[in-house]
């Protein structure tokens, strides 16, 4: 399909900005102006609408069909949440208003949302306070590890090591490194959980903390998590809960109650805000009492008279991690979702998420290798090793699912499972949908035996087939820029690619 730039017709206009006659005009000297206009497309409104509508039809979203992408919690995103963020009182609200003199009275509704959201997350996670500022899950991890660094520095402790199990998300070690820590990887044991033996061997005074995903990336709950927290606390370390998988334990188990010191939750996973094709997300971070002083600036508080205000006077704070108060539009949607569900609704979320995951696990167990066959939480991880013997890899199974109208599971993660296929159905899927998916998986497993080449040809019914990723990386073409060299081409010649 043509790029939008290549559809451009010289002289065609889209949306026309307002024109107003003014007594004076800006008068910039020639050398401060750009030499030629930015080569943006020249299109009518209908051209632009059709272009993007056609693009959207080449996408698969949760609204299109089952999307069991493990570790990503692709649950349904309620439509009413999309509507409330467009209310002008939220959408048009300038973030600097509360920084004007007595400006906090100008944004009372917004501050109340932030304050109440903080309160609800505290209750859900068993923590003493939250910052809503982190702009994504990985950003939450960075904020959390920066809080760890500030805490240890404040106590005069020289702690340099961050422990991370080998099954952790790649963002864990990357975030810890940026917060200034050296990462030490702890291997898993034969049950898929972090090896207690290796953990104990790694413990000494240099350990700043441990980052643990709970339940872990195999969808397993580590019943020794309380002991693990105690071991880390014994060396004056802090325990970070990567709450990416909170959808498994809402109302069942709270990170704060079992000994975690810091937790981040992903509003775009657990609390139903849309993933947006890869963002924007939101990754609020909660901490226990002794870490409250280190939360980022600012913090929303409630005054004795019931009004809300922003507290900037936080001398021990790690400082600013976001320009303002977080991804407010995303927070609003999660707030709306929580207000519709309430405590009992949230408990039912996790019960149904776990039910659905175990149902898929049980039904597919006869057909695919299941390296860790115990009860799972919100997701289950199969391996395609059996099918691989016929040359059918996890990647091929993923493509065969696409052929059958499903979004594939997460594949090749966690790294601790060969040919991993990580399936997270979420609670918003019905038994009928799960049964269709299960039938498709069984069909693929049978085809992998009878006609493996047919599986490897998939998908055949998509706008493009399997793409050459090696070529993309070796000879990157990452932008179409108008040829700027010759003035004659300034009108609307097709773009020229940048080849690196």
């Amino acid at each position, binding site marked *: 399909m043509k790029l939008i*730039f290549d559809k451009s017709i010289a002289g065609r206009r*889209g949306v026309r900005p307002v*024109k107003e006659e003014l007594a004076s005009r*800006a008068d910039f000297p020639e050398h401060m102006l*750009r030499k030629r206009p930015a080569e943006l*497309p020249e299109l009518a409104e209908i051209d*632009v609408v059709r272009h993007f509508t056609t*693009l*959207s039809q*080449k*996408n*698969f*979203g949760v609204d299109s069909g089952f999307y069991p*992408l493990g570790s990503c919690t*692709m649950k*349904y*995103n309620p439509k009413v949440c999309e509507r409330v963020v467009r209310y*002008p*009182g939220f959408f048009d*609200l*300038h973030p*600097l208003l509360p920084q*004007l003199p007595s400006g906090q009275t100008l944004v009372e*509704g*917004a501050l*109340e949302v932030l304050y*109440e959201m903080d309160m609800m997350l505290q*209750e859900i996670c068993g923590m003493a306070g939250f910052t809503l500022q982190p*702009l994504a899950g*990985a*950003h939450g991890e960075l904020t959390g590890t920066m809080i760890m660094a500030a805490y240890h520095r404040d106590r005069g402790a020289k702690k340099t090591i961050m422990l991370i199990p080998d099954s952790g998300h790649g963002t864990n*070690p*990357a975030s810890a490194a940026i*917060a200034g820590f050296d990462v030490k990887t702890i291997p898993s044991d034969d049950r898929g959980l972090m090896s207690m033996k290796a953990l104990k061997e790694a413990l000494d005074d240099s350990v700043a903390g441990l980052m643990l995903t709970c339940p872990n990336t195999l969808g397993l709950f580590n019943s020794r998590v309380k002991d693990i927290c105690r071991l880390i606390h014994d060396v004056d370390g802090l325990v970070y809960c990567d709450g990416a998988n909170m959808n498994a334990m809402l109302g069942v188990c709270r990170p704060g109650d079992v000994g975690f010191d810091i937790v981040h939750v992903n509003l775009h996973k657990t609390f*139903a805000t*849309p*993933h*947006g094709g890869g*963002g924007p997300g939101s990754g609020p971070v909660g901490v226990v009492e002794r870490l409250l002083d280190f939360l980022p600036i600012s913090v929303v508080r409630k005054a004795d008279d019931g009004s809300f205000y922003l507290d900037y006077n936080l001398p021990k704070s790690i400082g*600013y991690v*976001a320009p303002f*108060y977080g991804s407010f539009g995303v927070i609003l949607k999660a707030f709306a979702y929580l*207000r519709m569900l*309430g405590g*009992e*609704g949230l408990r039912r979320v996790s*019960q*149904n998420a776990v039910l659905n995951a*175990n*149902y898929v696990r049980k039904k597919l167990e006869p057909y695919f290798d299941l390296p860790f066959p115990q*009860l799972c939480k919100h997701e289950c991880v199969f391996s395609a090793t059996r099918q691989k013997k016929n040359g059918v890899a996890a990647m091929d199974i993923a493509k065969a699912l696409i052929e059958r109208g499903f*979004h594939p599971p997460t594949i090749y993660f966690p790294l601790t499972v060969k040919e991993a296929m990580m399936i997270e159905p979420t609670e*918003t899927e019905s038994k009928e949908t799960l049964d269709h998916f299960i039938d498709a998986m069984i069909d693929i497993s049978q085809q992998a035996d009878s006609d493996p080449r047919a599986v490897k040809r998939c998908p055949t019914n998509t706008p*493009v087939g399997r*793409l*050459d*990723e090696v070529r993309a990386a070796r000879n990157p073409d*990452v*932008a*179409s820029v108008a040829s700027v060299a010759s003035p004659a081409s300034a009108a609307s010649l097709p773009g020229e690619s940048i080849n690196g």
Partner: protein
Amino acid sequence: MPFIPNTNLQRIQMLAEMGLDEDGLFADIPAEMRCKGMNLPEPLAEQELRNLMSALAGRNRTDLISFLGGGFYDHFTPAALDAILSRSEFYTAYTPYQPEISQGTLQAMYEYQSAICRLTEMEVANASVYDGGTAIYEAIMMAMRVTGRRRVIVDQTVNPIYRKMIRSYTHNLGIELVETRPQNGRARRSEILDNLRVETAAVVLQNPNFFGMIDDFTDVAEMTAQHGALSIVSCYPISLGILKTPGEMGVDIVTGEGQSLGLGLSFGGPYLGFMATRKKYMRKMPGRISGRTVDEQGRDGFVMTLQAREQHIRREKATSNICTNQNLCALTALTYLSLLGKQGLREVAQSCADKTGYAKQRLLQVPGVRLKYPDRWHFNEFVLELPARADQVIRRLLQRGVAAGFPLAAYYPDMEMSLLVALTEKRSKADIDFFAHVLEISL
């Protein structure tokens, strides 16, 4: 239960097929670790929720005639933008891990990257980072990887909020941050040059700067390069509709806040950090990148590429911990730029600048009011020097329904009388006249 389709009967069937009961689903969580319930507000029906949300929205003042900017601007957004963005195939998808069913997202990412390159006249762009502040931080980290040096110069005309963010992020990394002081509201070349003499990785500037002043950084980019450092310029994308581009100035890394490209102010987010650089630094750039390639039949298609830089492969050695982009916000910016087009963006930029010219002229007619930096050009924002404390004036004008601007003393303590005033195409001549009128009677 809301948003859970399975009936109780179905649940019972499913449990029976698995030979489990409800409690058995959580048998792996010891009783001592179970929580005793959560005390959350009672659930609301959709109608009740909408009433609650409109009541909350109603307690935010978006009815003011606003001249508040500071890097975040109230631009007009066309209805077609909303229509396109409400396509749920875009917003309910995730990261395009499976390119065959994500060509919509991947092509849009590629087009967004191209649009940013065309706007800034740079060679390559990533698919976005969180916001304008984190974009500068990522650019600094990138400059350190390229140069192998750990000293960074940030001019004080860079948005003070971003400078605070940079300070937080670099705190644990043994980076030496130096802030250079401006002269007459613009970056002072001699001070930057003095500081460049020591092993410096990057010089960070902003255009137009926080005081609204436009600059030509060709000379700074040149002297920065001569000292083996990289120049980083954070810019306001609307201004690039008419102003000299960072590409033409020879800047190494361009960043900026993309909020003005069709995103709501939304009380601080979600926003969009854009980032572009030269081809030779492409593999040192952080963040998602979409690339064009072909399938087995030779058809054009797009994939996420250069992933060897990223955290899921490199873990603690990655170029950044960033895991996604601000994809929907990037799509918004691309759609906005496409709807306005080549001519429309120019007109929006010119309109902002014209209204700024008019506002300066009109406000200077108010007795006692002068421009703080009269000898330079302003794009859409300028600093007024008032005959009274800016915070007091702002307070009085708020009572008359005008948000007059931002009091600079909040970030520059010696600028108590200074008011930062912003214009966009949305402010009418009548708004400006009214502002001048109430300012005059409030002084």
